[in-house]
Structures are given as C-alpha cells and as structure tokens.
C-alpha cells in the first residue's frame, strides 16, 4: 500500500509539469502587449507608460522556454510569483483564499454525497414506482437549473426577503472579533476556529453564512450522485448475494443498507472523487454570487484578467489536488472492497 502511494506520488511531478506547460502554452498564444493588460487595467494607467519598457522589464518578449524556465525555477525555490489581480504573492493569495473554499467545499461535500446516496438508494428501492420517478425527475431538474440562476434566487429569497442567510463569510461584527487580538486563528476555518476559541456566536454566524451556498451546490450535485447510486444499487440488488442474504432471513433494511449499499458505493466513490474537482470549478459561480472570496472566484477572476502567475499557480494547486483525490479514491476502494489490493 505504501509503495503504491509512493509510486503514485512519483508521477505527480510529471502531471504537474505537463499541466502547467499546457496552460503556459495557451497563455503564450497571446502577444506580449496582450499579456501586458494584466498590469494595465484602465486607459488612465497608460499615461506616461512606456509600454515597450514595461514589456522588457517583465520579460514578456523572451522566448517561451525562458519565461517558463523562469517561472518553474521560481516555483522550485518556493516562489510562485506575484499575482497582479490579487495584489499579493500567489502563495499568499492562495493561502488567504484556501480556507473559504475548503470550508465551503467540505461542508457541501457531506450533504451532496450523503444526500445523493440516500436519494439514490431510495429511488432504487422504489425502482420504477411513483417515488422513483419523482425523486429522479426532481434531481434532474436540480441538475438542469443553471447555478447562477438558482444562486441568485436563493439570495433573493433567503437574504433579500427573509434575511436569514446573508452573503460573504461572516457578518461585520463577527469579522471584527475574528480579526481582534483575543481570537486566535488556528486554521482560518471559522467554524473550527470558533469552536477552538469557544466562541459559539462565531460558529453560528459562520454556519448561517454557509447555508445558502451549500444548498446551491448540493442541489446541483445531488442528481449526479443519486444517479450513480441508483443504477449501481439496481445492479447490486440483483446480485446473488443479496438473494443469499434474504434467504438467510435478513431484514429488508439490513439487506439494503448493509449488504447492498456498501457494494454499491464502489462506483460512487469514483465519481465522487471526480466530482470534487468539478465541484471546485463549480464554486466559481457560487462564490461570486455569495461573495465568498475563495479560490474558485479568484481563479476565474485571474483567468479573465490573464493574471498568468496566478493561473499557473492555480493549475499547480489543482493538479496536486487531483493526484491527492485519486489517491484518496484508491485508498477508499481498498477500504470498501477487500478484493482490491493496492500494489
């Protein structure tokens, strides 16, 4: 198992170099003046700028391999460069935005996976009857409504009309507490920090701010998980060992939840792993609408401003995450299914 993990980690650099080269070559499709726009966002900034001097200073005219080499050797030294759109170093920009995204992502993952699996099991148990159709159609509708429409409607109802779930991560008063000297930011995950500081008002406030975005994400991905679970369950429920279990006199609930679900989870784990990356991409919209300054929103913004140090840094980060997720998927296979050995 350990040698397997080590071997998977060994291909990490290959993937990372490949993926950054891919993005870099895309960026190099633009001319130097176009890439200059990262630094000049408004015509007013053209006053007294010698564009050619700026191009030379930033090295935008050098051959691509020199520019890439400069960047990658910086990375090797732990310097990911300066992100113009964040106004800080790329590393800083990522560190300050990571907790928001991770908090939202992890919190959403739970209802998405658990809710999706429950829905899928429910539909498979009711295969082809009324409830199966209803839950399937509802899930497909959830999948079919664009996130930006759904998110804005959520905002309109739960903040605009009812005032329950405000946007951003914390209220102003709570941010003041979090930023004050008496509050120790262990993780910058406000829920965890609130608990560690025994400040439950912060915890409550953080949760309140997360409800609407979590629902928005969940609605979208439920259909995805549910669908896989359902078809996987339908297949498993026809397996001989399910009949064996029934023939033993096992209760139907136990048959479904003990004997079937664990087997049915194997394909679900695969897609859930793949989903995590898609979910992170999907956070672009959710974070934008609910004003959560996280990685998704940052990456979209950086991409649109052609802030390529940030884009490349993000690519590294996501590539790393992909390998990590795949590893987690493989390990959880081994946990769920004793037949699989990681070698």
């Amino acid at each position: 198992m350990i040698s397997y993990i080590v071997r998977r980690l060994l291909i990490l650099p290959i993937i990372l170099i490949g993926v950054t080269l891919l993005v870099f070559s895309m960026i190099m499709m633009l001319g130097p003046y176009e890439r200059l726009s990262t630094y000049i966002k408004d015509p007013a900034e053209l006053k007294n700028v010698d564009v050619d001097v700026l191009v030379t200073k930033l090295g935008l005219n050098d051959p691509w391999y020199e520019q890439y080499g400069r960047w990658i050797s910086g990375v090797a030294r732990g310097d990911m460069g300066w992100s113009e759109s964040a106004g800080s170093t790329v590393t800083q920009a990522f560190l300050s935005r990571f907790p928001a995204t991770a908090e939202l992502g992890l919190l959403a993952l739970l209802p998405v996976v658990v809710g999706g699996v429950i829905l899928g099991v429910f539909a498979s148990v009711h295969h082809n009857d009324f409830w199966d159709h209803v839950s399937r159609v509802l899930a497909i509708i959830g999948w079919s409504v664009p996130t930006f429409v759904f998110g804005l409607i959520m905002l309109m109802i739960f903040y605009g009309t009812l005032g329950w779930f405000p946007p951003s991560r914390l209220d102003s008063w709570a941010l003041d507490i979090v930023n004050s000297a008496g509050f120790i930011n262990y993780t910058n995950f406000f829920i965890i920090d609130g608990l560690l500081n025994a400040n439950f008002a912060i915890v409550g406030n953080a949760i309140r701010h997360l409800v609407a975005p979590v629902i928005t994400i969940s609605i979208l991905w439920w259909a995805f998980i549910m669908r896989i679970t359902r078809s996987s369950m339908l297949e498993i429920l026809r397996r001989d060992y399910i009949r064996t279990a029934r023939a033993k006199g096992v209760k139907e609930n136990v048959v479904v939840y003990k004997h079937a679900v664990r087997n049915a989870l194997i394909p679900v784990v695969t897609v859930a792993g793949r989903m995590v990356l898609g979910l992170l991409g999907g956070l672009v919209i959710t974070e934008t609408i609910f004003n959560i300054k996280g990685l998704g929103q940052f990456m979209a913004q950086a991409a649109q401003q052609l802030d390529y140090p940030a884009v490349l840094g993000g690519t590294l980060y996501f590539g790393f995450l992909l390998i990590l997720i795949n590893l987690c998927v493989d390990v959880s296979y081994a946990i769920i299914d004793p037949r699989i050995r990681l070698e």
Partner: protein
Amino acid sequence: MEWQEVVIRLFKNKISLIGLILIIFFGVIAIGAPWIAPPSDPSEPYMVPRAGWGFEPQPPSSEHIFGTAEGQYDIFYGIIWGTRTAFRIGFIIVGISSFIGILVGTLAGYYGGWFDEVVMRITDIFMAIPFLIAAIVMTTILGQGLRNVMIALITFGWMNSARLMRSQVLSIKEEEFVIAADALGAGDFRIIFKHVILNTIFPLVIEASMRMGSMVITASTLSFLGIGAPEGYADWGQMISFARNWILGGEGNAIKYWFTVVIPGGAITLFCLSWNLIGDAFRDILDPKLQ
C-alpha cells in the same frame, strides 16, 4: 438489443417520452426560426434586434411578447434563435469531443502498452484542471465568441469519453469474438471499428445525451461571466446574463423583472432536462443488468 426496439421503448417510457416531446418541440422551433421570428437583417439572423437604446428591461407587450432584456434586446427573438444556438453548441461540442474521446480511448485501449500509458497520462493532464476554470482560461485567451467557447469546451471535454471508451475496449478486448477476428487476420482498423466500437458504443451514447444539456449550461455560464457569446448574440446564456443585474427587481417589487430570468432560464432548464430525461431512460433501457 436492436435499435428499433430501443426507439420503441424510448417512446413507451413515460419519462423519456416527455423528454422526446420537449426535444422535438425545441427542434421544430429551431427549424422554424426564420418564420417564427423573421430577422430584420437576414445576413445576421443571430443578432437580436434592439427595440431602443435604454437599459431597463421592458415587460412583455403586444409588440415584444416576452418583453425586452437589458439593452432592449427582444427576448422572444433571442429565445427562438437561441434554440438553434443551443442545438449547435450541444451537437458540435458533444459530437466532436465524443469523437475525439472514442478515437483516443479506443486506440489506447486496443493497443495498450506504452502507447496506452502515454495517452492516459496526457488525459490525466487535461483532467487536472477543473473543467470550468480551464474553459474560462482558454476562452479568455481565444477571445469572446461562440466559436471560441466551443473550441475551449471541446479541448477540455473529451477525456471522460476517452476513459469510458478505453475501459469498455479493455473489457471487451479479451472476449472471444475479438480474438477470433484477430486470428482470422482482419486488419487492426477493421477489428477496432467493426467489433469493438459497435459493441461498446451504447454507454457512450448515454453519456453524450447527458452531456448535451450540461454543455449548453456551461456555455451559458461562460456567457454569464461575460466571456461567452458576444453581446446581442441570440444565446440563452447571454439572455440570462442580461438578467443578472435585474434578478432582484427594484422599487420594492422583487419580481418586477421576472421575465428576464424566468423565460430564458426556463428554456435552458427545459432543454437540459429533456436531454437528461432521455439519457436516464436510455440507460435504464440499454443496461442489460437492469432488465
């Protein structure tokens, strides 16, 4: 299962029937667009006509039955011609990316060895960036426009088909009839196409029908972010992005501009829904294990 039987079953299944009816409905609108909403400038039928130069959306009236969006773009016209855009986006992106996926996946799975290894690592590299972010980067670089959106979505949209195809090919490669064909001396090309692809195509068809809807949504998300279709182009995502800043109404009337959201939002949701319903039913029908 014969394809005729598949079609018959699609029509018999209530859920897929709803989906089929919706698709046919959209298809009729797409074909009939020049008669339903005659363009004022036939050389540029996809440019939505403007009813004025102001910004505030105007509610439905006899002249503009769905009202006008921000910038006085006629929503009815945009929806009708946008149907064509939706089909085009869906068919082109899904068609080409599935084709690339089939080709790559089949070759990798069939030949195996180092070739497979290299191809799958390349696939991994493409999959290492979240789809939406990759699409944003690429569209930003290529510039605004539907063609560029499609290029970006194809570039980062073929990997799933490839992996699916590869695993199908791997599992079927060992089966007798392929080995038999090999022994009979059929050329590689023929083996792949005649046996492997024909025997593995169905899961891919299901996947493709599911992706039709989500590609249209992704394209509209790019429009929403301001890097999709050019402003004024008949595209549902574009129509919704016009609604972005009006969705919360105004002057104490929260649903004052409902038509800017509900009509294009409804169109895109129904379109995506219908493909998904068909795909879902398709899967149930074609999956022999579920019979």
